[in-house]
């Protein structure tokens, strides 16, 4: 598996072959608070880089989930829809959101590595 990359919208992504796994970062869950609802893209649908690909709702507000890369949705994580609190428990592990079959792997290049993201998250504060 590739190294974990991060987007400015607080998603993480890993790549295995041409299939990317995407979720939201621990930092994002800390900002959102208790997550109580998750909506994921439909399997078989196509999503575009930086477009919306789901929704999470905390007790406070609804937030869009964006996809950091383009591709076809090949799998979604029903477990987080059934029990959204799993997203707070293990956001960067078992609580992944969806898997994409990527079209253009060079889209990974513009994303941040862990050090860059940690610095970004700390500085942006949101």
């Amino acid at each position, binding site marked *: 598996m590739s190294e974990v990359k991060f987007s400015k919208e607080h998603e993480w992504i890993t790549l295995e072959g041409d299939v990317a796994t995407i979720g939201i970062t621990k930092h994002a869950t800390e900002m959102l608070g208790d997550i109580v609802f998750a909506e994921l893209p439909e399997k078989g649908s196509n999503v575009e880089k930086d477009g919306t690909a789901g929704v999470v*709702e905390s*007790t406070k507000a609804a937030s869009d989930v964006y996809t950091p890369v383009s591709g076809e949705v090949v799998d979604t994580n029903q477990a987080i829809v059934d029990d*959204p609190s799993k997203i707070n428990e293990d956001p960067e592990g078992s609580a992944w959101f969806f898997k994409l079959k990527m079209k253009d792997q060079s889209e990974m290049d513009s994303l941040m590595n862990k050090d860059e993201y940690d610095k970004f998250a700390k500085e942006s504060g949101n």
Partner: protein
Amino acid sequence: MEIKKTSLNKLHQSNNAKFVEFAGYEMPIQYSKGIIEEHKFTRSHSGIFDVSHMGQLFIYGDENLTEELEKIFPLDLKKLKLNCSKYSFLMNEDAGIYDDLIITKIEGGYLIILNAACKDKDFEILSNLLGTKFKMNLDHNRSLIAIQGPKSVEILNSIINEVDQLNFMTGKWFDFDNQKLFVTRSGYTGEDGFEISITNDKGEKFVQNLIEKGAQLIGLGARDTLRLEAGLCLYGHELDINKTPIEANLKWAISKSRLLNGGFIGSEKIINQMQDGANQIRVGIKPEGRLIAREKTKIFNDNDSQIGEITSGTFGPSVNGPIAMGYVDKEFSKVDTKILLEVRGKKYPANVCALPFYKKNYVKGVN
């Protein structure tokens, strides 16, 4: 305008509060444990809420004052006993609600608890209505602290002896650290609890005492989920100047004798609506599934006509699902009516349901 801070601001900071601006005050929305845990802790143990941003209006006067206030509030104040509280409203001539409030008969007058966002305007309205005959004091030197949940009586009683003798919606002056504080058995969470009016200089020490006895600070986030589960209205959401108490389904708060004889501001509209019914009415709404329908979500019938709007919607931690309140056209206000909620462009099924979502645990008949 500079943001205002309550006397407990430092204490909130040292307890890792996340702050938001609310009605011009810097208030804690949550602490490190988060809204759901804070909510559940209040339901199972005892939560402390800083509600010092709310207005504490003392009005002093004799039976003349009672007479004048009866022209304003739809209450039988002549029959209100010393130290007893009532929920009521300040209304305009069309029975539109300026504010909802709690009024308590105290020695020498009344204490009225007002919403933070409304308190200055309320003071102006009441000053204009009452003139200069009565001394009025919107007291900025006092903090207001609520303690709510099943363990609250035991915790508070260990600090202030005999508060356990108070019945729901009654109050009394007590002593704490050589200061007088006014305690009422009331609150806005659907739990047994108390609200304590205390001078600003003693606020922090008092709350520290409560924390040492096992109560925990709870933010406005959980206060909102708690009151919504309890089916209680929040001004600016369920209630505003375009809503009447009848539309808000709060006619229980209007004294029966006043409904018959009127004579208070807005009484004509209220009496008319009592006879003819209101066009829209506040209801409880339970979405099917886990979808959350928030404020301003449009409500439709199955013919695609809009029949109302959500005024508050969230996830209820104790009911473990989404809950909402809103206004619907009268013919759709019956319990179990199927409705549709439009969220992010799609319509989702929901049901009109009875309030509260969570059963109240008020204490009656202590003595």
